[in-house]
């Protein structure tokens, strides 16, 4: 029980220290809140706009999650194709790397123009595009580096490729998959917000940030950033929980 309490208290204390340092930094420099808001400026912003934060936060959250789920499905599909076939790996890898190297901020206006008005769709699309690459790569590496003995153990018993995939290849790849998912979950957030900030009449926390900018409401802008960080933390730890559930075996006891 003390271990659990510790897991909770240590990060909490770290967070408080961070907020205190931030407050001190602003106070020592005597910065006005249009230069840099301090944590004590944020509270009034949350109190004033709490309804907006809930509505917009939900918008951002569900679109991120849908984008991420798409990335998981498509990423696993690409990963499987590249993991099992060398030809496909050689063919697809450069394409995927190139696609991933394009800064998504440049894709945002293209997508926004391509599907004018389809705001939900556009946002999900960007969240998906930015987050599927790590998943595809990790799954393909996990599958292609499967030691031949693992396959032989089952193949020598007459197991089909499908059986080998379900019994060995898939579970063995799970730790790599979850490692990638942790990267992807924060990337998906970035994707969602890119679209929300750029597209006119947008929704979500990104749009709230944009309206703070328009109205020179600096504490609101900072409050949005912190809300985004909190959502990011929550999603990240949901992934960690899933990892413990499905790939907890990969974790060795410390020491």
């Amino acid at each position, binding site marked *: 029980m003390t271990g659990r309490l510790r897991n909770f208290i240590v990060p909490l204390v770290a967070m408080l220290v961070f907020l205190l340092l931030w407050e001190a930094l602003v106070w020592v420099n005597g910065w006005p809140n249009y230069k840099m808001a301090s944590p004590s400026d944020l509270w009034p912003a949350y109190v004033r706009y709490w309804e907006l934060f809930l509505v917009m936060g939900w918008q951002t959250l569900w679109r991120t999650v849908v984008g991420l789920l798409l990335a998981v499905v498509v990423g696993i599909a690409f990963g499987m194709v590249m993991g099992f076939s060398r030809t496909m790996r050689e063919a697809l890898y450069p394409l995927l790397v190139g696609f991933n190297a394009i800064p998504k901020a440049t894709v945002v206006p293209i997508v926004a123009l391509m599907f004018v008005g389809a705001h939900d769709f556009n946002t999900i699309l960007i969240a998906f595009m930015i987050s599927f690459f790590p998943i595809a790569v990790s799954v393909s590496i996990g599958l292609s580096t499967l*030691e031949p*003995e*693992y396959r*032989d*153990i*089952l*193949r*020598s*018993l*007459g*197991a089909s490729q499908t*059986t080998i995939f379900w*019994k*060995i290849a898939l*579970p*063995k790849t*799970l730790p790599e998959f979850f490692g990638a998912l942790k990267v992807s979950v924060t990337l998906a957030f970035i994707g969602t917000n890119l679209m929300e900030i750029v597209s006119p009449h947008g929704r979500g926390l990104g749009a709230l940030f944009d309206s703070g900018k328009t109205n020179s409401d600096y504490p609101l802008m900072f409050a949005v950033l912190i809300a985004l960080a909190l959502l990011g933390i929550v999603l990240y730890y949901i992934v960690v929980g899933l990892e413990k559930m499905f*790939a907890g*075996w*990969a974790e*060795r006891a410390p020491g």
Partner: protein
Amino acid sequence: MTALIDIKGVRHAYVTAAGPLPVLDGLEVSVEEGGFCAVVGPSGCGKSTLTRLIAGLMRPDEGEVWLHGERVRGPRSTVGMAFQNPVLLEWRTILKNVMLPLEIVPNGLKGKAAVERARHLLSLVGLEGFEDKRPSELSGGMRQRASLCRALVHQPEVLILDEPFGALDAFTREDLWQTMHDLKEKEPFTGVLITHDLREAIFLGDQVVVLSGRPARTQYVMNIERTAPASLEDLYTAEAAERLNILRHQIEIAQGRVPEEVA
């Protein structure tokens, strides 16, 4: 022929960028039912290819592999395999690892019977009480014991061992040799053992086959009569020393270090 495993005139070459690489050339191996054949030979002479041929994981370019009077044309569930790397599945407990083949072979034991079978084997190799551990919690020797149980759980006709003790320290290895004899007494099987260790070959095998350098053919066969239960002390007799000398000489020939006519 009463041989359970019969390998006749097998030739095989791998396709490489530099052209075909012949690995087996006129291989003849025959193992009686209940026999245990140890195969030794220089590194890279095609010993592992031999195990894959018997297991039906690949087919030879030429020649025939017969198991129990049937031509081997593909994988068959009557084979059990263990490798130098125990390849246990980290996400399964030891018990579940041992039970894996039963989930795959047709008519494998199910449910309670499967659990009992696996537990029985684990107790034979001294792993009682470790059923619910993860492979990462076991030592190398214990993992290899579990791997042997997995190879035997579906009562295969043929047990194929590809240097299963190669990565273990000398004491653990000798322990496992003894375990092999115990297992063979209680769970009779016909075995093929690939090894680099001549002492292991004469201690475990009742037939030792020396393969020539690549491409491998059968160069020499030594038959070893077994009467009394095996004991490690057998390795320190004059008879054993003589056998080891003969085998070592054969290996030198196989490596091309001694011309054959001198033998």
